[in-house]
């Protein structure tokens, strides 16, 4: 499903004094089936951009469209509900998402609400709890008696169970142990490919950007700085240094080796495999 932003402005409109636009005249288009990493520093507007994609925040100007559905300032409840069926969002803080008295009820809420029968719902719950690597015993527990990382996993499971077309993840790896994070993001990438999802991932981890995403969308102070393929983005030294973007670990180490040897390699290595193979090819090992 395609996601389009056309000249979108938005703010949180607190009281009569209008705050500066939190999202300021942003236009872009995410192709159906694309995997996009949204990056930018603290307070840049990443979470706000995601909230615009599922109607938690409505544009003050311009339009957001998800497939055929359109969100504008006048969007009504019905359209917003239709959009929420198609767009699943994992919040930045999982606690903000969990509400039911048991984990099982929490995860079942979405699919049941979107019209699955009891048996289908049960199946969706079992399946998604397995996907996030939790023991089914946890279904009977209160989501508020879980550790931070367990809550994160439950929040992700709850969204996966709704079977969305557009999957929006706001720092899903925060709070996950490294092995769990890698498993879960790899699982999400697999679902993304199998189900041809349109996936949007907010992350501060440039390794995740390099490993999972096709495109990068960089925002700063509510404005779109650039939207381009991952490799093009990281190859652009001027851009990455101007915006204080960390390089993915393989590329960072490649640059360090280049400085130590006072030379540059032709290839830009974004993954462990690429870097290790290049080092062998180039005879350093």
């Amino acid at each position, binding site marked *: 499903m395609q996601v389009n932003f056309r000249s979108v402005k938005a703010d*949180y409109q*607190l009281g009569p004094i209008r705050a500066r636009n939190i999202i300021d005249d942003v236009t872009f288009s995410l192709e159906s089936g694309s995997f996009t990493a949204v990056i*930018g*520093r*603290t*307070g840049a507007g*990443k*979470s706000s951009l995601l909230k615009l994609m599922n109607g938690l925040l409505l544009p003050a100007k311009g339009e957001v469209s998800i497939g055929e559905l359109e969100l504008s300032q006048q969007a009504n409840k019905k359209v917003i509900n239709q959009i929420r069926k198609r767009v699943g969002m994992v919040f*930045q*803080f999982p*606690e*903000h998402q969990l509400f039911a008295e048991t984990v099982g009820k929490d995860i079942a809420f979405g699919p049941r609400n979107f019209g699955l029968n009891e048996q289908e719902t049960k199946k969706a719950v079992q399946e998604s709890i397995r996907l996030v690597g939790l023991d089914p015993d946890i279904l009977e527990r209160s989501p508020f*008696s*879980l*550790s*931070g*990382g*367990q809550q*994160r*996993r439950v929040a992700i499971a709850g969204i996966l169970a709704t079977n969305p077309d557009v999957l929006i993840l*706001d*720092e899903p790896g*925060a*709070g*996950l*142990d*490294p*092995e*769990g*994070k*890698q498993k879960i993001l790899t699982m999400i990438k697999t679902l993304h490919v199998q189900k041809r999802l349109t996936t949007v991932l907010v992350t*501060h*981890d*440039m390794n995740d950007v390099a490993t999972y995403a096709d495109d990068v969308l960089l925002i700063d102070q509510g404005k779109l700085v650039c939207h381009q393929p991952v490799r093009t983005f990281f190859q652009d030294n001027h851009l990455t240094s101007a915006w*204080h973007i*960390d390089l993915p*670990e*393989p590329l960072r*180490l490649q640059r*360090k*080796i280049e400085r*130590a*040897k006072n030379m540059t390699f032709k290839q830009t290595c974004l993954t*462990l*495999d690429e*870097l*290790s*193979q290049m*080092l*062998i090819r180039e005879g*350093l*090992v």
Partner: protein
Amino acid sequence: MDNPPMLCVDQVTYRYHVTKSHYALSDISFTVNAGEWLAVIGNNGSGKSTLARLIVGLAEPESGSILINGKRLTERTKWQLRQRIGIVLQNPDNQFIGTTVQDDVAFALENLNIDDHEMQERVFRALRLVHMYELREKDPSQLSGGQKQRVAIAGVLALEPDLMIFDEAFVMLDPKSRRELLALLRELQAKLGLTIISITHDRSEAAQADQVIVLKDGVLIDHGPPAVIFEAHPDFTPPFAEQLKRKLIELGGSMPDAYMSEKELVDWLCR
């Protein structure tokens, strides 16, 4: 050298429900010396946050004891001991009490008996250190994720305690801010002899600690300097340089087996 350790955790055991057999912590013992940086690592649900809660007296061990600066933490001593300990919880929302950012940070200092002027100085200084001074009038609940974490961190910086505990307190910061903040903490550690306990999933952060403890299912399974820990646990995703070295060996490269720091690896590759 006969100062007592900053923190001594001795055979501590804890359950959330005394009727259930599940122990969140079983027989945990370790010490942290004054001026040391301890990283606490371990899988989700291994007991890290529970341990932090016990150390600051938010919960009480079922058995065993916790000593802060040689004094035992009890119901009676905890208020006094708590003044020298600052903690940033895993979810900053659970920590905010003020309706503005600056009030919130000031609340951390309430029990210190300092005058208003000094209080304001300290609050503003801490907010400047985390780049939140401009937003000091805002409602903490209306901040971005990273901004919330900064405010929670400012509360601890303003308190200027002897022991700071961070429970995954940097995860929402952008990499540049995270580095700056870790550098600032390291500077305070060196200058003031500050003791730091950082619960983290970030292996490169843990690699820079003085000591690391590893929890697994509520049990302390290892304690030592980072290089020793990463070498002893090949199943942990190690820092990137070590990952690369292992990959190169896998691809047939002849390289030293021992754990290599990034600098050692680069030197070796460019030898």
